[in-house]
């Protein structure tokens, strides 16, 4: 991939990080306070990861890296206890989504949808492995029970968050630090 780095200052990056952190924090609040209570389709939909993917697609790999870490950290802090590796997983998935966008996909809804479904699938597999290790849940049974519902539910409920993420990006950061 031939990338051309635009001049981005640490100040700019910090400002972006703060704005995205607040947005991811809001998404995490909705996910852990509202959606976790009602559990539509029998699972807790994932909202933060699709937001991170949306940021990665629109704002590039640096934002993807930072927002992946922050998103994972927030969701681990607010939503779970004990061992959790969301910060690393989200970061890697976000970076992958950013590079896919610049090399194969484009900055549009379809790209976000494909990247999100892929990321959710990976996340669900990781969760199944973690469930197997931590509480001894049978991997395939857990995966089979939650896989499609988790992806469908997360995708549906993250649609409005994608729209807002895109609006924030257009309003504040429509000057990517890297062009594909």
């Amino acid at each position, binding site marked *: *991939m031939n*990338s051309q780095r635009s001049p981005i200052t640490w100040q700019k990056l910090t400002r972006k990080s703060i704005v995205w952190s607040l947005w991811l*924090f809001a998404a*995490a*609040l*909705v996910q*852990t*306070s*509202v959606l976790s*209570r009602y559990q539509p389709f029998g699972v807790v939909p994932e909202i933060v990861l699709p937001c991170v993917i949306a940021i990665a697609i629109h704002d590039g*790999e*640096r934002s993807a*890296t*930072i927002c*992946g*870490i922050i998103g*994972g*950290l*927030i969701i*681990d*802090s*607010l939503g779970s*206890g*004990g*061992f*959790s*590796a*969301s*910060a*690393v997983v989200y*970061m890697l998935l976000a*970076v992958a989504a950013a*590079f896919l966008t610049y*090399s194969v996909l484009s900055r549009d809804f379809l790209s976000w949808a494909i990247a999100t479904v892929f990321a959710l699938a990976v996340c669900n597999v990781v969760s199944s492995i973690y469930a197997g290790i931590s509480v001894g849940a049978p991997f395939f049974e857990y995966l089979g029970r939650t896989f499609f519902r988790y992806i469908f539910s997360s995708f549906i409920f993250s649609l409005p968050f994608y729209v807002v993420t895109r609006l924030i990006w257009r309003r504040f950061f429509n000057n990517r630090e890297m062009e594909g």
Partner: protein
Amino acid sequence: MARFLKSKFFIIALLLAIVLVTVPSVLALMGQGSVVRNVLNVIATPFRFVITKTEESFEGFAMYFREFDDMHEENKVLRARLKELEEQVAKSEAVREENKWLYDYLGLRRLHPDYVFEAATVVGRESGNYMTVMTLDCGTANGIKLNMPAITSEGIVGYVSEVGLTWCKVSTIIETATSVGAYVERSGEIGVVKGDYSLKNQGYCQMSYLSTDSDIKVGDRIISSGIGVVYPRGLLIGTVTEIVPDAASRTLSAHIEPAVDLKDVSRVMIIKDFAGYTEEPADTAE
């Protein structure tokens, strides 16, 4: 991509992510909360509180409609249940009345073992305040013939004045064309109970041809004497309500209130046979 993955930025970020994942996890496994987790949860708590309260408000609002729907549904179910119970009550009332009627019928059968009864239902009435002719749902097909007496457990109703295959008409004892041989139960004074045009509108009949020194009082019970061919002896006709002198014939007349409520009677028994019954027709009953 390779350049970015090898960049200091990515390597530092990855290391930071690993540290941020590992340290809190280890601390959590040791039973201690991490600073990051603690700070984030402290910040999140008021927001969560607001979200929860807002959620509860919406839930309460939605609950109103849900409860309204539930109450509406419950109301429908209760209405259906009420209707069902009302039907049951109506049925049980009918059964109770029938039971009473059958009980009375049984009593009459025991009292008069020689009577052969045919139960009949009143299906039609002559219009007017006091019914003097009523239509029953049995006729010659049931063995009903002219002049057979119709009674209830309370007393005499009348006699069969017209009969068809499946129906018959009964002229009541207050009908002007009717006369019944009778006596006063208390004193044995005899006379004839007849329908009277002026009394029939009040639902009464009249016992005539009583001598002025007859032993009869208001409240006396009047019983059929069995003289004649229609009514057997011993059936209650009614009660004396008033005694009036007849200046022309120099006799007394007594106004009789029939024992049977002719206005509301719905079932009667026709006596098809009894000891002493003859099939001779009588134009005015007796």
